[in-house]
């Protein structure tokens, strides 16, 4: 059999690999021959066959196995060829361990070995600098975090008006009166007398520091208790979270079957419990019953199982052909019935009766049932549902009206009829007017909304009419909005389409109505404007007349009104002369007389001369202060024919002169450099604009301008040190921190090489980078 097999195999081999390499073909028959000649046993044959198969399979494609050269001792020694058995396999570690017989004790070791092997090789360590850098970074972050708690302190100190060193713990500035009193005793006779009096009158001399209630509350909970309490709470929270996790897991299960089973189980359980309850505790059972009743109500309200759902509808379609679907439907219906079943709260004796009733009820339709129940007892919910039916009927009648209403564009359903009638009255009115208006229709249409042209008499007439109308409309609008809106349509229609379309104004849409209303109002306004426009110029004239009267009294107003003050006026205006009670004596001394004489002469020559001189002087001053243009013309440049290029660089126009509007004043615009030398010329740090800084230096701090106290406060030194005292560095305790902050800082400083898991992460990140 083995030969036969081998023959077959050889044949198949030949047929398969007819085109393969010649050498191998040459080899194999040899092998085959050899094996044939040597082997007698089945074992050998089988093995060879195996080998052959392997050889064949290895022949195809790239996987072709090279026949290994013999290099070591092998079980199989052939004189023709080196056998490759065992050489192709990789030596596995486990193989070394493998004893002759397999033993279970070594399995664990093997597992461990395999685990070791599955791990990747250890990466190269980072170089020293990089590691140090990472360490530094980590240490910096940590230190920064630790030190950041000092930020508020630093900020406070920086903003503090005054710092006093050495730092001392702040004592409570004002001790409570009770403290003071407790350590104080009446010594002088007066004090004793007073205290006696107080005691006699039972005045409270020293209140207790704390009320007993406060003390008790302070003592109420010890540390251990608090810890226990916290532990309990933690446990409870953990349990809760476990339970929640479980519930969530279960909820996630999608298997319908599972859920069905669970539900059924639950139902069974509930039933069992209910039975038990009924025996043990009838009151509780009653409550349970109520729950079931509630489920019934829910079902009745939602009608979840009454073939109304999406699923049910699809099933209904299928039910014709599909038995299963039909069954499902029936199941659902039965479920519905089951749920809507009225449960009878009855004693055991009545139970059987109730059963019969149930059957009866099952037969009767639901609606009838309800009515019956109404008869049984008044239930407002049921009552309402009954009336709703009648309402539905009413609404079914409505739709006939509805389209009409919608055409009106008004959402209100009722009370529409009356306004319609009113509209008709108005309509007639309008028609009457229309005949009047027809003449000026065209011009009105063409007239733009904002135009303020003078209108001919016809259009004005129209406008006046419109105004009347709009007023009417407004009144109506106030009285009833709806009416007004419906009326608003009419003028619109008449205005824009004088043709027969106005018979059906009701068809107009609502937004258009609003528009027309607005338009009408606008028109009315326009009218008003026009009316107002006439008197305005008169008013203006009055104002302009009035302003000059104010002039001498209000120089500022005058300045606004008129840019330039008339210098002539300023100096030559006749001022009222003073009526002095005492007139100076006429006879005067010689020099006075002489001066008077001179004065007379000067008066005679005084006049425009002075003013002209002054104006000239001013003009010169203005010219002198103006920035000068720079002329860059060079002789010979730009003198070619054509338009000569200008080499004039125009100076930028400076700010307007302060005396621009003051004709009788020349204000020197030159900068006082001596005074400027005393001014601040560099903005100090936090300020970005000089206005900000100016605000801080506007208040004088000298004692000339301030009270003594204010002066002292304004000039307090920023830092005060007590002479002869050592100023220690600030400590955490000084500012109300725990002292631990220092220790954890020192930990980092001591062994910065220690790396926590977080640091490792960072390290990894860095190495990736």
């Amino acid at each position, binding site marked *: 059999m083995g030969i036969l097999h081998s023959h077959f195999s050889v044949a198949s081999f030949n047929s398969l690999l007819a085109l393969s390499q010649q050498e191998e073909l040459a080899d194999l028959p040899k092998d085959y021959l050899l094996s044939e000649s040597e082997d007698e046993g089945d074992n050998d044959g089988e093995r060879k066959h195996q080998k052959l198969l392997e050889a064949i399979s290895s022949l195809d494609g790239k996987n072709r196995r090279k026949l290994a050269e013999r290099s070591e001792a092998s079980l199989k020694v052939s004189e023709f060829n080196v056998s490759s058995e065992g050489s192709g396999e990789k030596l596995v570690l486990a193989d070394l361990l493998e004893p002759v017989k397999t033993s279970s004790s070594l399995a664990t070791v093997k597992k461990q070995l395999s685990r070791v092997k599955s791990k990747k090789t250890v990466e190269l360590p980072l170089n020293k600098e990089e590691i140090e850098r990472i360490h530094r970074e980590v240490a910096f972050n940590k230190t920064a975090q630790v030190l950041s708690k000092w930020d508020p302190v630093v900020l406070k100190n920086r*903003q503090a008006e005054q710092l006093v060193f050495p730092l001392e713990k702040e004592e409570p500035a004002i001790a409570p009166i009770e403290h003071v009193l407790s350590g104080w005793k009446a010594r002088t006779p007066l004090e004793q007398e007073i205290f006696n009096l107080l005691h006699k009158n039972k*005045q409270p001399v020293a209140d207790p520091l704390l009320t007993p209630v406060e003390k008790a509350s302070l003592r109420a909970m010890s540390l251990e208790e608090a810890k226990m309490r916290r532990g309990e709470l933690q446990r409870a929270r953990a349990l809760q979270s476990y339970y929640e996790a479980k519930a969530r897991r279960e909820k996630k299960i999608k298997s319908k079957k599972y859920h069905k089973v669970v539900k059924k189980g639950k139902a069974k359980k509930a039933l069992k419990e209910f039975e038990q309850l009924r025996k043990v505790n009838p009151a509780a059972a009653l409550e349970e019953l109520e729950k079931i009743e509630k489920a019934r109500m829910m079902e009745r309200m939602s009608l979840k199982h009454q073939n109304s759902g999406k699923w049910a509808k699809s099933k209904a379609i299928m039910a014709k052909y599909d038995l299963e679907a039909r069954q499902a439907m029936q199941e659902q219906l039965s479920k519905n019935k089951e749920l809507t079943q009225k449960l009878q709260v009855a004693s055991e004796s009545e139970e059987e009766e109730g059963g019969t009733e149930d059957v009866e009820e099952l037969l009767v339709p639901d609606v009838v049932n309800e009515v019956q129940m109404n008869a049984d007892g008044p239930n407002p919910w049921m009552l309402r549902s009954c009336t709703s039916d009648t309402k539905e009927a009413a609404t079914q009648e409505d739709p006939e009206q509805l389209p009409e209403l919608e055409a009106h564009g008004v959402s209100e359903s009722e009370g529409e009829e009356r306004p319609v009638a009113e509209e008709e009255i108005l309509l007639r009115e309008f028609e009457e007017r229309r005949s009047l208006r027809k003449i000026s229709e065209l011009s009105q249409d063409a007239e733009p909304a904002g135009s303020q042209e003078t209108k001919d008499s016809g259009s004005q007439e129209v406008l006046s009419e419109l105004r009347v109308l709009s007023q009417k409309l407004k009144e109506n609008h106030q009285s009833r909005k709806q009416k007004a809106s419906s009326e608003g349509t009419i003028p619109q229609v008449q205005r824009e389409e004088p043709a027969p379309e106005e018979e059906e104004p009701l068809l107009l849409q609502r937004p258009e109505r609003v528009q027309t209303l607005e338009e009408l109002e606008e028109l009315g306004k326009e009218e008003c404007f026009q009316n107002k426009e006439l008197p305005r110029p008169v008013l203006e004239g009055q104002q302009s007349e009035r302003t000059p009267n104010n002039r001498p009294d209000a*120089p500022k107003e005058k300045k606004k009104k008129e*840019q330039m003050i008339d*210098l002539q006026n*300023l100096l030559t205006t006749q*001022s009222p*002369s*003073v009526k*002095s*009670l*005492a*007139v*100076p*004596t006429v006879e*005067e001394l010689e020099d*006075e007389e002489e001066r008077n004489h001179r*004065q007379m002469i*000067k*008066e005679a020559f*005084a*006049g425009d001369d*002075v*003013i002209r*001189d*002054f104006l000239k*002087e001013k003009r010169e001053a203005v010219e002198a202060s103006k920035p000068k243009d720079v002329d860059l013309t060079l002789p010979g440049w730009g003198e070619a024919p054509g338009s000569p290029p200008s080499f004039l660089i125009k100076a930028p126009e400076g700010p307007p002169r302060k*005396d621009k509007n*003051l004709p*009788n*004043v020349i*204000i*020197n615009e*030159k900068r*006082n450099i*001596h*005074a*400027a030398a005393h*001014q*601040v*010329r560099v*903005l100090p740090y*936090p*300020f*970005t*604009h*000089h*206005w*900000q800084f100016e*605000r801080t*230096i*506007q*208040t004088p701090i000298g004692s*000339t*301008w*301030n009270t003594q*106290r*204010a002066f002292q*406060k*304004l000039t307090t030194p920023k830092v005060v040190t007590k002479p002869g005292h050592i100023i220690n560095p600030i400590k955490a305790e000084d500012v109300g921190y725990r002292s631990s902050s220092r220790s954890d800082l020192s930990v980092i400083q001591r062994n910065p090489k220690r790396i926590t898991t977080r640091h490792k992460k960072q390290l990894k990140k860095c190495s990736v980078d």
Partner: protein
Amino acid sequence: METAPKPGKDVPPKKDKLQTKRKKPRRYWEEETVPTTAGASPGPPRNKKNRELRPQRPKNAHILKKSRISKKPQVPKKPREWKNPESQRGLSGAQDPFPGPAPVPVEVVQKFCRIDKSRKLPHSKAKTRSRLEVAEAEEEETSIKAARSELLLAEEPGFLEGEDGEDTAKICQADIVEAVDIASAAKHFDLNLRQFGPYRLNYSRTGRHLAFGGRRGHVAALDWVTKKLMCEINVMEVVRDIRFLHSEALLAVAQNRWLHIYDNQGIELHCIRRCDRVTRLEFLPFHFLLATASETGFLTYLDVSVGKIVAALNARAGRLDVMSQNPYNAVIHLGHSNGTVSLWSPAMKEPLAKILCHRGGVRAVAVDSTGTYMATSGLDHQLKIFDLRGTYQPLSTRTLPHGAGHLAFSQRGLLVAGMGDIVNIWAGQGKASPPSLEQPYLTHRLSGPVHGLQFCPFEDVLGVGHTGGITSMLVPGAGEPNFDGLESNPYRSRKQRQEWEVKALLEKVPAELICLDPRALAEVDVISLEQGKKEQIERLGYDPQAKAPFQPKPKQKGRSSTASLVKRKRKVMDEEHRDKVRQSLQQQHHKEAKAKPTGARPSALDRFVR
């Protein structure tokens, strides 16, 4: 503005009960009508004055902005206080009827506020804002403290009040003297010195001493209250003007040729030959500068603390014989013959401002103590009051029958004008208002034409120098009733004067700081600031304060693509650009709007113009 209470001044009651109404300070023993025990009953306020000082319930301490100032004097509400009696009860169980700090009237506080809050600040950083807040809080605190200390200004100015319809100008000096008490009546006196011709006079800063010099060489100084003569000499030369220096111990006399300085014994200390032919003298007390105007047309500033001439300015307007100082900013006002008044500071070679006041020459100039008003009189017989707060426009004008040759303002704003042998005094409505020239407040006729006028500081007295000597007349309401005991104390001893002298010298203000706006020192030199900035930019090659260009923040979830970054950048750029355009458009509009009114409004009559 600190004010110290008067240490030992007994109130000189100058007026009588009929015509003068001076409120007497109420003494504690005078309150007979009221139950004596104070604090026992939280009763309603007793009199009106008390009610004004009504303390309010202390509001939240955090809102200290307005809480400490009461807008209106409020009456405390009893029921509110009874609500929590525990909190306010002391050991004795008695309640503070007026809890919290006393409120201060807003107007008084406003007077001491110096920060100009009308200017809107640009947006500032948190740090800057905190600094500004501190500054504002400080200002408020100090101004409140100053307002509280106003309580110490116990004296009130007196005034004349005519009986219904009576013109106060008709009240003559004899009436007043008859009505007031003896001490005040003694302040009215006449010195008949007909020999040495028209007199110039000057009161010392404290108002205690009077120096006068006659044209014909008579120079004297005296304590005019006690009439104790300090010195009397004849310099045997024409005396044009006389003036006390910083204290009554030194006296500057402008003589025919040179300027001489004497001490209070009449010993000549200096003869300053660089100031020659001086016509008028002014002393700037805070700068220790003696300003002299000369016939040669020079305005010379002499620093009397070091004896150096600080500046000699050529006014280029001929002879200078009209000069006065602005006590507010120490600017010298010179009147010229061409009708202008020029304002001078030693730091500038040119006048700070020139105001055309009169068509004729200017005869007299005076500036009031607040530096707000300037009164000028010219050869055109007009008396004008100008507003010096930037506009330099006349507020009121009056033509006087003969024109005023001399003008002077009192501390409380009364204006006196000497016209021939008449002096007219005008008073304003309040302290800050200009004197109204409608009705004279007082008039007085002298025995000769007026040659010198000055109100005595801290006294209701006007000193007039004329050809017949010196007249000291009573002008109720002229002087400041409260004086600063540390600054100018009329009752100071010699030691106190020496102390003050040292302090004043230490606080001497440099002459360069004289300018029109004395608060300019509290401003930043913007031009140098900008220049410094420009230089820094040049030096560094970039603007360190420039706004950093917009850098879009990286966003998550793939929204940080290059395209979107660019888009975002573009958006911001466009927005900025739009802002710029908008601004420029607005400016254009403004310009146009401004340009329009300058053109004459088209009138209906234009059509007839050919």
